């Protein structure tokens, strides 16, 4: 069974792009999405996709910033 990290990387490849180019499935989850050039709008939309995929509520309490995807992985695994 795929780990949360593997599933998130797959979602990254399918949903996040910069200047029309996918970030790919090998994106480093500890890297900053903003530094990768992902817009804040895309980051918020992506959090919504992840919340739907894992059936979780992503809140300010369990994920204080959306900029780092490892935070999302931790929030999901910490349910």
């Amino acid at each position: 069974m795929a780990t949360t990290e593997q599933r998130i990387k797959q979602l990254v490849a399918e949903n996040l792009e910069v200047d029309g180019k996918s970030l790919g499935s090998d994106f480093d989850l500890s890297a900053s999405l903003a530094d990768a050039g992902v817009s804040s709008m895309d980051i918020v939309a992506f959090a919504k996709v992840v919340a739907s995929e894992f059936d979780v509520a992503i809140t300010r309490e369990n994920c204080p910033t959306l900029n780092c995807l490892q935070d999302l992985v931790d929030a999901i695994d910490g349910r």
Partner: protein
Amino acid sequence: MPAIDTVWWRPYQTVGAVSIVHVDVGPFPEAEACAQEWLHSDERARWHSFESDGPRRRFALCRSALRAILCARFGIANNDLAFGESTFGKPFALVEGNPAGISFNVSHSGAHGLIAYAPAGRLGVDVEERDSRRKIDLLMDTVFTEAEEQAIFAHQGLSRIHVFYRLWTLKEAIIKALGRSLHLDAASVSLPLAVLRGKKQCILELSQSPGVAWQIRDLGNADFAAAIAYEEEIFDSPRRTAS
């Protein structure tokens, strides 16, 4: 300090004490080469760390334009200007190692960058190139209040896209002014009804910042949506009390 023969920024608007500069961050190799020379070593390291050309170029052109603007304002050399970062990653200027008496904020999207600066007070700016392919439904309940959603869905087609981006940039400017970009509390910021009805400028008080009057202003044009939010005054100041 390298000379800049062709600048890639120009004054865009002035709103109260806030000056807004437009930065052309489209492909412009000559400008990008010049911009790199203005970056300090830590900024060049960051420039190298970008994996894509677009983000790398937008960072270099906006940061070097910001450097040029602040150096001119303070009458200092480029080497005397540095930047620190708040807990939430919002940069601030240091002149000869000391916090500079200026507030600024930067945003870029596609081929457009905006730099807003003022002598004092918190401020935030946001610019977004409108993308009619964007699935705006996905962002609605995360970012907007019920009244804001209604204001957006009262429009159809391209008009809906314009209203969506207009309200998004106003909210993002407020959140950036509060120094909390990318946090999950966008829906807790309610835009005034007058703004939802199309008013371009408005004063509001935020529950996140009680006692402070915030001025928000729609800066959008045909090419992009944009907005600023800035701290105008403290409600209990003598001037406010007298009025």
